[in-house]
Protein backbone atom coordinates (compact mmCIF):
# COMPACT_ATOMS: atom_id res chain seq x y z
CA UNK A 1 0.00 0.00 0.00
CA UNK A 2 1.04 3.60 -0.52
CA UNK A 3 1.18 6.02 2.37
CA UNK A 4 1.59 9.70 2.88
CA UNK A 5 4.10 10.12 5.69
CA UNK A 6 3.61 13.10 7.93
CA UNK A 7 5.31 14.43 11.02
CA UNK A 8 3.75 16.25 13.92
CA UNK A 9 4.44 16.45 17.65
CA UNK A 10 7.79 14.79 16.97
CA UNK A 11 6.10 11.61 15.71
CA UNK A 12 5.71 10.07 12.29
CA UNK A 13 2.28 9.13 11.00
CA UNK A 14 1.32 7.05 7.97
CA UNK A 15 -1.87 8.05 6.19
CA UNK A 16 -3.19 5.73 3.47
CA UNK A 17 -2.72 7.66 0.25
CA UNK A 18 -5.94 6.26 -1.18
CA UNK A 19 -7.81 8.14 1.57
CA UNK A 20 -6.20 11.51 0.79
CA UNK A 21 -8.11 13.98 -1.32
CA UNK A 22 -5.66 16.90 -1.32
CA UNK A 23 -2.77 18.47 0.55
CA UNK A 24 -2.43 22.18 1.16
CA UNK A 25 -1.29 24.81 3.61
CA UNK A 26 -3.25 26.31 6.45
CA UNK A 27 -1.13 28.96 8.12
CA UNK A 28 1.96 27.22 9.48
CA UNK A 29 0.36 23.77 9.27
CA UNK A 30 0.06 21.41 6.37
CA UNK A 31 -3.55 20.46 5.90
CA UNK A 32 -4.43 17.02 4.56
CA UNK A 33 -7.98 16.81 3.33
CA UNK A 34 -9.37 13.30 3.45
CA UNK A 35 -11.88 11.93 0.97
CA UNK A 36 -14.19 11.16 3.86
CA UNK A 37 -14.53 14.88 4.57
CA UNK A 38 -12.36 15.56 7.61
CA UNK A 39 -8.99 17.28 7.51
CA UNK A 40 -5.75 16.56 9.32
CA UNK A 41 -3.22 19.23 10.28
CA UNK A 42 0.42 18.19 10.55
CA UNK A 43 3.76 19.98 10.89
CA UNK A 44 5.28 18.59 7.71
CA UNK A 45 4.94 16.01 4.97
CA UNK A 46 7.89 13.62 4.94
CA UNK A 47 7.07 11.94 1.65
CA UNK A 48 5.19 9.12 0.01
CA UNK A 49 6.11 5.53 0.73
CA UNK A 50 5.19 2.08 -0.45
CA UNK A 51 4.96 -0.20 2.58
CA UNK A 52 3.42 -3.45 3.72
CA UNK A 53 1.36 -2.85 6.86
CA UNK A 54 1.70 -5.11 9.89
CA UNK A 55 -1.79 -5.59 11.34
CA UNK A 56 -2.48 -4.93 15.01
CA UNK A 57 -3.71 -8.07 16.72
CA UNK A 58 -5.84 -8.64 19.77
CA UNK A 59 -3.00 -8.32 22.30
CA UNK A 60 -1.38 -5.15 21.01
CA UNK A 61 -4.76 -3.75 20.03
CA UNK A 62 -5.78 -3.50 23.66
CA UNK A 63 -2.86 -1.15 24.33
CA UNK A 64 -3.24 1.09 21.28
CA UNK A 65 -5.73 3.83 20.53
CA UNK A 66 -8.54 3.03 18.10
CA UNK A 67 -7.07 5.21 15.34
CA UNK A 68 -4.08 2.87 14.89
CA UNK A 69 -4.83 0.74 11.85
CA UNK A 70 -1.54 -1.14 11.63
CA UNK A 71 2.17 -0.45 11.73
CA UNK A 72 4.47 0.31 8.81
CA UNK A 73 8.04 1.26 8.06
CA UNK A 74 8.40 4.58 6.29
CA UNK A 75 11.84 4.08 4.88
CA UNK A 76 13.51 2.77 8.03
CA UNK A 77 11.30 4.63 10.48
CA UNK A 78 8.38 2.81 12.10
CA UNK A 79 5.05 4.60 12.20
CA UNK A 80 1.45 3.88 13.11
CA UNK A 81 -1.09 3.84 10.29
CA UNK A 82 -3.88 6.36 10.81
CA UNK A 83 -7.38 4.99 10.31
CA UNK A 84 -8.87 7.66 8.03
CA UNK A 85 -12.34 6.87 9.33
CA UNK A 86 -11.46 7.87 12.88
CA UNK A 87 -8.27 9.92 12.88
CA UNK A 88 -6.61 10.91 16.18
CA UNK A 89 -7.94 14.03 17.84
CA UNK A 90 -4.49 15.63 17.94
CA UNK A 91 -4.28 15.60 14.14
CA UNK A 92 -7.72 17.06 13.51
CA UNK A 93 -7.63 20.57 12.08
CA UNK A 94 -9.33 23.44 13.90
CA UNK A 95 -12.55 24.45 12.19
CA UNK A 96 -11.03 27.00 9.83
CA UNK A 97 -10.90 26.60 6.06
CA UNK A 98 -7.59 26.11 4.31
CA UNK A 99 -6.06 29.40 3.20
CA UNK A 100 -4.81 27.91 0.01
CA UNK A 101 -4.84 24.45 -1.44
CA UNK A 102 -2.56 22.56 -3.72
CA UNK A 103 -3.56 19.53 -5.72
Amino acid at each position, binding site marked *: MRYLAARTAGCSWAIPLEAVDSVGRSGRDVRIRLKEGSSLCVDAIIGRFEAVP*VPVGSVLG*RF*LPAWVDG*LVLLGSKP*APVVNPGRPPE*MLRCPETPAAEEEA
Partner: protein
Amino acid sequence: MKNETETSRFVLVRCGEQRVLIPAPAVVRVLGTVTVTPIPGAAPEVLGLTEVEGEPLAVLDLARIVGDVSHFGASIPSIVEVRTTAGEEVLGLAVDEALRLVDVVSGNVSDPPSGVPASGVVVLEDEPALVLDVDRLAGEEG
Protein backbone atom coordinates in the same frame (compact mmCIF):
# COMPACT_ATOMS: atom_id res chain seq x y z
CA MET B 1 -2.95 -31.07 33.18
CA LYS B 2 0.81 -31.07 32.95
CA ASN B 3 2.89 -33.91 34.30
CA GLU B 4 4.61 -32.80 37.53
CA THR B 5 7.99 -33.82 36.14
CA GLU B 6 7.60 -32.20 32.72
CA THR B 7 10.39 -29.74 31.97
CA SER B 8 9.91 -26.47 30.11
CA ARG B 9 12.56 -24.07 28.93
CA PHE B 10 12.47 -20.33 29.62
CA VAL B 11 14.52 -17.22 29.02
CA LEU B 12 15.22 -15.60 32.39
CA VAL B 13 15.22 -11.81 32.25
CA ARG B 14 15.65 -9.05 34.76
CA CYS B 15 13.29 -6.12 34.64
CA GLY B 16 13.91 -3.65 37.43
CA GLU B 17 13.68 -5.59 40.69
CA GLN B 18 11.67 -8.39 39.07
CA ARG B 19 12.94 -11.56 37.51
CA VAL B 20 10.70 -12.95 34.80
CA LEU B 21 10.72 -16.26 32.95
CA ILE B 22 9.58 -15.97 29.34
CA PRO B 23 8.66 -19.29 27.67
CA ALA B 24 11.49 -20.08 25.24
CA PRO B 25 9.18 -21.29 22.44
CA ALA B 26 7.61 -17.82 22.38
CA VAL B 27 10.95 -16.01 22.07
CA VAL B 28 11.88 -14.99 18.55
CA ARG B 29 15.15 -13.28 19.48
CA VAL B 30 16.83 -11.09 22.06
CA LEU B 31 17.99 -7.69 20.93
CA GLY B 32 20.48 -5.24 22.41
CA THR B 33 19.91 -1.55 22.95
CA VAL B 34 17.18 -0.06 20.78
CA THR B 35 15.57 3.33 20.51
CA VAL B 36 11.80 3.66 20.31
CA THR B 37 9.52 6.37 19.00
CA PRO B 38 6.35 6.89 21.02
CA ILE B 39 2.78 6.41 19.79
CA PRO B 40 0.62 9.30 20.99
CA GLY B 41 -2.44 8.16 22.90
CA ALA B 42 -1.18 4.63 23.50
CA ALA B 43 -1.49 2.97 26.89
CA PRO B 44 1.43 3.56 29.27
CA GLU B 45 2.53 -0.04 28.74
CA VAL B 46 3.49 0.86 25.16
CA LEU B 47 6.97 2.37 25.03
CA GLY B 48 6.80 2.91 21.29
CA LEU B 49 7.87 1.53 17.95
CA THR B 50 11.18 0.37 16.63
CA GLU B 51 12.46 -1.33 13.49
CA VAL B 52 13.82 -4.86 13.52
CA GLU B 53 15.10 -6.45 10.34
CA GLY B 54 12.84 -4.47 8.07
CA GLU B 55 9.67 -4.78 10.16
CA PRO B 56 8.03 -2.38 12.60
CA LEU B 57 7.89 -3.70 16.15
CA ALA B 58 5.77 -2.38 19.01
CA VAL B 59 7.65 -2.45 22.30
CA LEU B 60 5.84 -3.01 25.58
CA ASP B 61 7.17 -2.10 29.01
CA LEU B 62 7.53 -5.44 30.80
CA ALA B 63 8.05 -3.65 34.11
CA ARG B 64 4.59 -2.08 33.94
CA ILE B 65 3.02 -5.28 32.68
CA VAL B 66 4.22 -7.24 35.70
CA GLY B 67 3.16 -4.47 38.08
CA ASP B 68 6.55 -2.87 38.65
CA VAL B 69 7.56 0.77 38.27
CA SER B 70 8.39 1.89 34.75
CA HIS B 71 11.98 3.02 34.38
CA PHE B 72 12.64 2.93 30.65
CA GLY B 73 13.27 5.96 28.50
CA ALA B 74 13.53 6.25 24.73
CA SER B 75 16.63 4.04 24.74
CA ILE B 76 15.97 0.52 26.02
CA PRO B 77 18.82 -1.74 27.21
CA SER B 78 17.38 -4.95 25.77
CA ILE B 79 14.28 -6.23 24.02
CA VAL B 80 12.95 -9.76 23.96
CA GLU B 81 10.92 -10.26 20.81
CA VAL B 82 8.07 -12.69 21.44
CA ARG B 83 5.35 -14.29 19.37
CA THR B 84 1.97 -14.97 20.90
CA THR B 85 0.49 -18.38 20.29
CA ALA B 86 -3.11 -17.15 20.27
CA GLY B 87 -2.98 -14.19 17.92
CA GLU B 88 0.21 -14.82 16.00
CA GLU B 89 1.38 -11.37 16.99
CA VAL B 90 5.00 -10.38 17.36
CA LEU B 91 5.78 -7.94 20.16
CA GLY B 92 8.86 -6.55 21.83
CA LEU B 93 9.22 -6.70 25.61
CA ALA B 94 11.56 -4.13 27.13
CA VAL B 95 13.82 -5.64 29.79
CA ASP B 96 16.98 -4.58 31.55
CA GLU B 97 18.85 -7.76 30.85
CA ALA B 98 18.34 -11.22 29.40
CA LEU B 99 20.20 -13.45 31.85
CA ARG B 100 20.15 -17.06 30.65
CA LEU B 101 18.11 -20.08 29.62
CA VAL B 102 16.48 -21.97 32.49
CA ASP B 103 14.80 -25.38 32.53
CA VAL B 104 11.92 -25.58 34.99
CA VAL B 105 10.15 -28.71 36.19
CA SER B 106 6.41 -28.05 36.23
CA GLY B 107 6.10 -29.46 39.75
CA ASN B 108 8.23 -26.54 40.98
CA VAL B 109 5.83 -23.91 39.65
CA SER B 110 3.52 -22.42 42.25
CA ASP B 111 0.40 -20.32 41.76
CA PRO B 112 0.88 -16.84 40.28
CA PRO B 113 -0.06 -13.64 42.03
CA SER B 114 -3.34 -12.16 40.84
CA GLY B 115 -3.49 -9.25 38.44
CA VAL B 116 -0.39 -10.05 36.41
CA PRO B 117 -0.15 -12.04 33.17
CA ALA B 118 1.71 -14.92 34.79
CA SER B 119 1.06 -18.64 34.84
CA GLY B 120 3.08 -19.21 37.98
CA VAL B 121 6.04 -18.41 40.17
CA VAL B 122 9.31 -20.35 40.40
CA VAL B 123 11.97 -19.95 43.05
CA LEU B 124 15.41 -19.78 41.46
CA GLU B 125 18.44 -19.41 43.74
CA ASP B 126 16.18 -18.38 46.62
CA GLU B 127 14.53 -15.60 44.61
CA PRO B 128 11.11 -15.74 42.97
CA ALA B 129 10.69 -15.42 39.24
CA LEU B 130 7.36 -14.83 37.51
CA VAL B 131 6.47 -17.20 34.69
CA LEU B 132 5.10 -14.90 32.00
CA ASP B 133 2.00 -15.87 30.05
CA VAL B 134 2.67 -14.22 26.70
CA ASP B 135 -0.91 -14.69 25.49
CA ARG B 136 -2.29 -12.77 28.46
CA LEU B 137 -0.09 -9.69 28.20
CA ALA B 138 -3.14 -7.52 27.68
CA GLY B 139 -5.10 -9.11 30.53
CA GLU B 140 -7.56 -11.97 30.84
CA GLU B 141 -9.36 -11.25 27.57
CA GLY B 142 -6.11 -10.70 25.63
